[in-house]
């Protein structure tokens, strides 16, 4: 382990789902204490804390958490980057360790979203007695439903439809079958919010939210938290053999935003920034998509999963439908995707998601995933995208010890 390598020493996610009796600080504390225990260290060893809670971004979840688990005076970075908030917290800690500011740090993401409904822009200001232009578009009324939609199900539906327009081969049924794969996977994950096997016919018969995404094809709003302890290679060498054996190497940690392209301010372009992040990550890690034993990608909607097969270069450009039809992303395929059940069934407590997907990969690389273990997994990729946009890609490798 080279001195400047970064490793995950300990990591944890809470059960995702409904936690009516716990607040965000309870959930963040639970994940934090469990991640520290998993790492075999304490708050006193942490040199930095990066924490995110998107829906309470102004409240300073990092310091609230410290007041429950350890006020050690270390710098706290409260981060907010839409659905990439958790990945941003991890990235922040990694940058601090790489910069030599500290040798160990903690990243935490937590959200309470049960019953939140569709997320996206509000309906705009209530119409006044007289039409009055306001805002950057000089609008006299809220625009949701009048000029398209900012609601996430409709935005990501269009993302999948745009892919279909460009390359062909998509259909309502295809997207439902992608969703059925993930719901099937969830039955093996006791931490998933929804563990219910559903056929594609059942998924298609669910209430339509935004064509072609029915309710079962949308990420489940849920409560949950995840936390990770990161350590430098230099520090890890001073720790026990058992800690070194269970540590997972962060071979690449990349965060991108969306570069300008025609139309990207009309419908968010979630493709180019993901492709850019993947390309950088593969180069940093010296690993190609064909080397991946499993992938957790951001299936906030079934339509999103399809485009990210392509964006993460798991298939040739334009080949996402063929990739799915080949069986490659199934548990038994060549590149299992979302064996956790994905956001559609595991749940999507926003700020926790970008750490929870890394937890899933670590779980397999450590050989601790129980009945859903991908046998012999040595390398995996975790991807999140936050609309706006921010994309996090992490490539993780099993310890050689």
């Amino acid at each position: 382990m080279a001195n400047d390598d970064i490793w995950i020493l300990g990591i944890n996610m809470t059960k995702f789902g409904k936690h009516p009796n716990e607040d965000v600080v309870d959930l963040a504390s639970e994940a934090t204490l469990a991640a520290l225990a998993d790492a075999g260290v304490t708050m006193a060893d942490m040199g930095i804390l990066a924490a995110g809670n998107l829906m309470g971004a102004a409240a300073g979840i990092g310091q609230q958490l410290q007041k429950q688990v350890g006020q050690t005076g270390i710098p706290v970075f409260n981060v907010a980057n839409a659905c990439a908030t958790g990945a941003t917290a991890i990235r922040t800690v990694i940058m601090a360790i790489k910069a030599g500011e500290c040798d160990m740090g903690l990243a935490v993401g937590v959200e309470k979203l049960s019953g939140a409904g569709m997320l996206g822009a509000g309906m705009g200001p209530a119409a006044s007695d007289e039409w009055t232009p306001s805002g950057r578009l000089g609008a006299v009324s809220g625009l949701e439903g009048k000029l398209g939609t900012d609601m996430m199900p409709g935005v990501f539906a269009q993302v999948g439809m745009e892919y279909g327009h460009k390359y062909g081969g998509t259909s309502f049924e295809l997207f439902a079958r992608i969703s059925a794969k993930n719901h099937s996977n969830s039955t093996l994950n006791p931490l998933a919010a929804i563990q219910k096997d559903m056929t594609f016919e059942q998924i298609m018969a669910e209430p339509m939210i935004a064509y072609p995404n029915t309710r079962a094809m949308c990420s489940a709003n849920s409560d949950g938290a995840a936390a990770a302890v990161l350590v430098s290679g230099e520090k890890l060498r001073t720790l026990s053999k058992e800690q070194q054996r269970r540590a997972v190497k962060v071979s690449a940690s990349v965060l991108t935003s969306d570069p300008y392209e025609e139309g990207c301010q009309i419908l968010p372009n979630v493709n180019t920034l993901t492709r850019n992040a993947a390309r950088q990550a593969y180069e940093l890690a010296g690993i190609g998509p064909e080397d991946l034993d499993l992938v957790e990608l951001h299936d906030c909607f079934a339509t999103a999963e399809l485009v990210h097969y392509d964006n993460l270069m798991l298939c040739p450009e334009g080949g996402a439908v063929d990739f799915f039809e080949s069986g490659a992303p199934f548990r038994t395929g060549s590149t299992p995707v979302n064996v956790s059940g994905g956001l559609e069934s595991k749940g999507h407590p926003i700020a926790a998601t970008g750490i929870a997907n890394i937890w899933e990969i670590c779980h397999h690389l450590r050989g601790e995933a129980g009945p859903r273990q991908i046998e012999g997994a040595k390398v995996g990729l975790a991807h999140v995208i936050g609309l706006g946009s921010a994309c996090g890609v992490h490539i993780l490798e099993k310890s050689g010890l």
Partner: protein
Amino acid sequence: MADQIPLVDYLVLGDSPHLVANECTNCGARYFDRRNACASCSGLTFTKADIVTDGEVRAFTIVTPWVPGAAPYVPAVVDCGGTSVRANIVNTEPDAEHVTLGMKVRLTTFPIGTDTAGTEAINYGFEPAN
């Protein structure tokens, strides 16, 4: 005829309603909102560019409203001569048989309400061209 006001300021009403974009004089990138600078090249000067009113559906969805009984609506991205425009598809059934990818559409305008001063707000959408 009542006074009219466009729903958004980039919709130009009159005999031939159309959309107008802020076009960067340096790189040609087009935007519909008020600009501070260009997101593509950081240029600071813009000119007005009329957008063609014929287009092709590049992406769409059909949203089921939360309000029981409310009609589904059809948000779409319409390619108008190389400029992406956001709108609803209107004047056709809101289902995947009547709205299709690659469908040819044209701009249309319609009133969405009248305020206490008697001014009518006008929205735009795209309807099937055929």
